[in-house]
């Protein structure tokens, strides 16, 4: 349980931490697009090398990145096996494609949350989607929901661990037969849901008592801005993106 680190910030102060969050979100989307553009071994290897370089640059240990989506790798593996078996011709490439696309997409999302604090993510979403306000879409509310969700992952994780310890001290069995395991899991889930609802209620009350959301547009304490590093990163990323496109066009 304590190994679920998805959505947890890793404060190693690498250059990726300093980048503008809206830009990082844009890179994330473009990177995933590049994964889908690449259909050859060469193209997919370029994507893998790129994400490896990003992790090295970020100064987040590989272990932390891997740990944050370890359980999902099984899913990626199973789906690539299924694809391999159902494809008559060139099943190996199809399986490789599915595996690389899934794991690299997970990897890049993990890297985003590891190098960006939840409030930066929320600000990034808000500023990159603000053009949608023209269509009367409540961008600020969406960004707030995302930020609260991200904030609550570690909180609930801590809570789950507390309850896990308490039930384990009462002899709850998490490795025995299925019936025992089920009752032990229930003994965690019920209090966890109860506390999640209670916390949500308390948060809503305290936000309302501060008149949240009823005034004019909110301003920010820290405005992100674009710095030299952001320009440099954009140039690097653009060259990567163009490279994957040219690999696709030239090599197919």
């Amino acid at each position, binding site marked *: 349980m304590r190994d679920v680190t998805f959505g947890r910030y890793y404060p190693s102060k690498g250059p990726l931490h300093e980048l503008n969050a809206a830009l990082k979100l844009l890179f994330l989307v473009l990177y995933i697009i590049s994964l889908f553009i690449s259909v050859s071994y060469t193209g997919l290897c370029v994507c893998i090398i790129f994400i490896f370089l990003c992790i090295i640059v970020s100064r987040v240990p590989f272990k932390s990145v891997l740990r944050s989506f370890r359980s999902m790798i099984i899913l990626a593996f199973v789906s690539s096996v299924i694809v391999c078996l159902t494809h008559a011709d060139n099943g190996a490439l199809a399986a490789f494609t599915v595996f690389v696309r899934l794991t690299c997409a997970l990897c890049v999302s993990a890297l985003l949350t590891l190098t960006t604090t939840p409030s930066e993510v929320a600000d990034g979403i808000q500023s990159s989607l603000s053009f949608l306000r023209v269509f009367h879409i409540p961008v600020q509310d969406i960004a707030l929901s995302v930020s609260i969700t991200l904030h609550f992952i570690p909180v609930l994780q801590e809570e789950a661990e507390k*309850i896990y*310890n*308490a*039930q384990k*001290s*009462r002899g709850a069995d998490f490795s025995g037969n299925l019936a025992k395991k089920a009752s032990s899991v229930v*003994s965690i889930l019920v209090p966890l849901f*109860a506390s999640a609802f209670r916390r949500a209620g308390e948060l809503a009350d305290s936000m309302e008592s501060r008149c949240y959301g009823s005034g004019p547009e909110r301003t920010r304490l820290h405005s992100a801005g674009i710095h030299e590093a952001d320009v440099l990163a954009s140039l690097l990323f653009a060259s990567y993106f163009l490279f994957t496109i040219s690999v696709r066009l030239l090599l197919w």
Partner: protein
Amino acid sequence: MVIRFDNVSHIYGPGTLFEKKALSGINLCVEKGDSLCICGKTGSGKTTLIKHINGLLKPSSGEVKTEGFAGLVFQFPEDQLFAPTVIEDVMFGPLNMGKSRGEARAAAEEALARAGMESQFYDRNPFTLSGGQKRLAALAGVLAMKPQILVLDEPTAGLDFRSSASLLKLLHHLNSEGVTVIAVTHEMNLARDYFSKLLILDSGHAVWNGNTADAFCAGNRELIEHAGLEMPQDNEIEFLLR
């Protein structure tokens, strides 16, 4: 000797940026029937220490030995209630220990009676109880496992005067029956009035380990204040009068 800590240290997240040394070089001996109070300010390592008693945590270095079953009552134990009725929740522990339903029910009824909850509460949903009653039900959930060592983390936090007095009376009673009672608190009055042994933690180090009666002399004032605690009121008044 029921609990023995030999030069125990504990490090959280070794080798990561979150690395934190929570305990360093703790030596502790607890005899059967002792009542020990562990004091220290927030983050001094109290909870980490008690998690070693029933093996929830393993020491990074050093050795912990315990004899008999240690029941742990965590801070705000009311957050662990989950069953549809109070009696079933209390039966959870005994059933996990392999007791039959009949035996578990008997143990649960006895534990609830000890905790001062009458039979009308047995079939109530634990979520409909008041905060104080929830805590008693959770305590009964641990008592039903008949622990030889009872460890409580901040047992009186958030309780009103009367509830905490009756809880402390219960602990005293259990202790006189031979149960080793260990409690974590930062209320020094409580430590002085109810516990014979005292362990004071300061940033993971044991700065006082001995009889409670000897701890609150004027000479220890600086040590206690450095640990972020305050002298019990009577001792403080005595000091000021001098």
